[in-house]
């Protein structure tokens, strides 16, 4: 019987192979443009559009920008060349960026923590200019210029409120003096603006529309109008006024649609869901638990609102350590910024480390003769009223600074501002019959339940969530691919096109060493 099996199986196999050479075919789906024309595409936006990641912009991050991914899909239906101000191969590290160097070892009393390092080789820095906000000894770097007629106008750091600012790309705009401040130029806009030109961002958009004559565009501005406020712990950098936001939204959309182009407008995600705010609090709490710290008893004293000399700073005396958010998305809890990380281990110690650092940061905005002693001195004399001999974060005289904390009031204010801006963006997009990518709804659902792509679970978590890069704000290539796919979905829905998107798993998350 065994012999029978041995002899017949290969015969059957051969017979079967002969008959079964024929693999069933699945026809490749047709990719079509629908009612839109994707032949000339222009993207307008900030760092998210430019492809910033890991706290910088570099060749790889630019190549993985969502507009570049979109352009690769548009090319399937006749989309033409899509030019970006790419850093060259030899200057591939662009502005420099953070890389993950390793982890601190776990101990009995502390969990492992990531160690990041700056990439400082092969940069595209051609010089530096001291400005009001970046004075010596750390002047603002200037990046290698690219004056070609680029399609991707994503400018790192630009706010909706900046688009009409003249001289925004002129390195001569150094910001004036503390007493008489004027706008400071943006180094990323400077690198694509001819030397000496005072062209505003809006004018550049108009010039691009005139020369490229886009048939399709994406517009995603406004994140920095709340983000800068939020990442500074709602302690500085005031939010753009609603009227300015609305007026500028109209201006930029009118400029983009002047030639009849169709496009997508993206809303602003609620930034309190990003790892920049959701990482440090939970990891601090986990370390406290490891040390059996009585979190419901131990005080966590912090300041709220504006934190600047000459301004009254409000101290919150009733909070406990347990008020710090233990899990991302928990409502009503204190959020700590990623920048709070180096100072948390100082909790309870008599230290002025944070305040000395804060003084250095604040100096450009202070009168030149203003000393540290004055800075920390009594409120009556315009100081912050800090006593660094008291326990940091535990004593009302040495509170945890507002710059590193978003309390529930500030979170609510950020959410309502975001919603107001999004209402404007949606209204103006609808008025022009454009597609809308509601990034706010999308990232809220990512924060709540993750976003799996082909059996890989991606979340809004720091490091291992795959979607956010090391700066905790900007996406990874995986994150940008997911954004591009979501945009293609709304494009398909609006214009009847049939783009398939990309396999997001082919784009990396944060790579561990």
């Amino acid at each position, binding site marked *: 019987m065994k012999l*029978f099996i041995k002899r017949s199986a290969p015969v*059957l*196999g051969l017979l*079967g192979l002969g008959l079964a050479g024929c693999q069933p075919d*699945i026809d490749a789906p047709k990719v079509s443009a629908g009612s839109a024309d994707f032949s000339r595409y222009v993207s307008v936006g900030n760092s998210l559009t430019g492809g910033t990641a890991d706290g910088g912009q570099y060749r790889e991050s630019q190549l993985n920008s969502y507009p570049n991914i979109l352009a690769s899909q548009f090319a399937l239906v006749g989309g033409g060349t899509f030019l970006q101000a790419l850093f060259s191969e030899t200057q591939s590290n662009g502005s420099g960026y953070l890389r993950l160097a390793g982890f601190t070892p776990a101990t009995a009393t502390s969990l492992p923590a990531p160690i990041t390092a700056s990439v400082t080789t092969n940069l595209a820095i051609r010089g530096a200019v001291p400005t009001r906000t970046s004075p010596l000894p750390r002047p603002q770097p200037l990046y290698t210029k690219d004056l070609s007629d680029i399609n991707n106008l994503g400018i790192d750091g630009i706010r909706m409120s900046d688009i009409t600012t003249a001289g925004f790309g002129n390195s001569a705009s150094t910001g004036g003096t503390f007493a008489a401040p004027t706008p400071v130029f943006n180094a990323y806009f400077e690198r694509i603006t001819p030397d000496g030109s005072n062209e505003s961002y809006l004018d550049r958009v108009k010039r691009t529309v005139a020369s490229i004559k886009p048939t399709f565009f994406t517009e995603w501005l406004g994140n920095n109008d709340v983000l800068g406020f939020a990442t500074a712990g709602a302690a500085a950098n005031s939010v753009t006024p609603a009227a300015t936001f609305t007026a500028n939204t109209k201006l930029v959309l009118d400029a983009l649609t002047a030639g009849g182009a169709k496009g997508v407008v993206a809303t602003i995600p609620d930034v309190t869901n990003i790892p920049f705010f959701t990482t440090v609090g939970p990891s601090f709490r986990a370390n406290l638990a490891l040390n059996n710290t009585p979190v419901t008893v131990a005080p966590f004293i912090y300041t709220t609102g504006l934190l600047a000399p000459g301004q009254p700073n409000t101290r919150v005396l009733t909070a406990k350590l347990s008020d710090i958010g233990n899990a991302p998305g928990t409502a009503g809890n204190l959020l700590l910024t990623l920048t709070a990380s180096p100072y948390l281990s100082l909790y309870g110690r008599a230290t002025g480390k944070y305040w000395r650092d804060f003084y250095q940061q604040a100096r450009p905005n202070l009168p030149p003769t203003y000393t540290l002693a004055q800075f920390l001195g009594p409120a009556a004399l315009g100081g912050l009223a800090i006593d660094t001999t008291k326990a940091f974060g535990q004593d009302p005289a040495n509170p945890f600074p507002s710059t590193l904390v978003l309390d529930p009031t500030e979170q609510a204010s950020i959410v309502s501002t975001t919603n107001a801006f999004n209402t404007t963006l949606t209204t103006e997009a609808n008025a022009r019959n454009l597609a809308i990518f509601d990034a706010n709804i999308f990232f809220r659902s990512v924060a709540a339940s993750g976003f799996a792509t082909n059996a890989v679970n991606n979340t809004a978590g720091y490091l291992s969530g795959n979607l956010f890069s090391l700066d905790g704000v900007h996406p990874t290539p995986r994150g940008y691919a997911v954004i591009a796919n979501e945009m293609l979905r709304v494009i398909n829905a609006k214009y009847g096109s049939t783009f398939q998107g990309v396999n997001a798993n082919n784009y990396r998350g944060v790579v561990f060493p």
Partner: protein
Amino acid sequence: MTVKTLLLAGGALLASASAASASGFQVNLGGQKNIGMGGVGVGLSLDQAAMFYNPGALALVRENGVQFGVNAALARISFRSENGGDQRALQNSVVTPFNFYAGFGPKDAKYKFGLAVYTPYGNKVKYADGWEGRYALTEIDLKAVYVQPTFSYAITPQLSVGAGLMILAYGSVNLQKDLPLPTGPGHIELDGKAKTQFGYNAGIFFKPSDKLGVGVSYRSQIDAKVENGSITYTGLPTGASAGIVNPSFTANKFAATLPLPAVASIGIGINPTDKLTLGVDAALTFWSQYRTLDFAFSSDNGGTGVVGGSATSTSKRNYQDALAFRVGGQYMVSDKLAVRAGASYDFSAVRDGFVTPETPDADRAIGTLGLSYQVTEKLGVDASFLFEALVKRTQTQQDLLNLGTTDRVAGTFRTNAYIPGIGLHYKF
């Protein structure tokens, strides 16, 4: 030949193809004659394979006999990702389900004994390297061999009953997939043997005239339980990230249960002439028992263990009961030569949006051909060929998100299977 050697042979060469001739990972390849007739058999008493199709009919099988059959199942699965890219194929392999029957009874007695060995469930697929669903599955090999001592008794010349003790004598599962580690893709392999389990296969056969037979049969559910399966990893980091990543992959043992569901069948057999036999069957497989696929992870020293940071994993299946309709016929060309043909249609056990790479099930249409040649009065050869085409099936990323089935892959599956088979029978 003993059961043990049979099982050894089974272990060495048996597996059953995915897409082998019934819904889910069911395999309806019980006997070469039946295969040639579209898989009918509940209302017939053709040969010793009645032990599989309807134990009640065994008592009315005229001769004692031993028979053995083997099939070569070649599934051709194609896949296209929702996000474009090339069509993907399997790494093709041939799997060979087989069956063995021995039926005995005194001449003119009202009863018969028998022993059956068959493979009612099984699954083997191996996808191309680097395919889009690699983090859901790279390959699976699921085997189940049933051994069934059977007794059948003819209460009257028209009515017989029969039952068999189904023993899950051999069951094994090997499941592999890639791991999306932050240091680059890794790989995990789960391998385990099922515990011996018992069930029953019972049937009633009613033959009111020479021209008509009616049968019902029921095979009970057996749960294939793996209690101490092993887990092996490859590609876990060894450098700076080992201390961060590896604590999420400490398990080296797993436990899991897979239902091998019950099947209820009804069939009618008709003999319009001496030379022509026709059969019609309907079968309902109770796949709705397969709700989730759950794994519990642990480690060697009896301690806790995790995979991906979790001590358990649950994957939704939500299968539905699946109907199949079968029809087939046999024509005796001469005393020595019989030819057969048949067709069947099996409805899918898998709901829309729940399709997994290990069982890319869909409604399937099946056509079969067969013949037998009686070499001597006692020895004959049976051959069959089965072709099946599964309906092209698509699920989107949005489907997966809506249903919470994001542990699988969005795209389109299409499968064809080609299953030639050959067998020997010896009557005495």
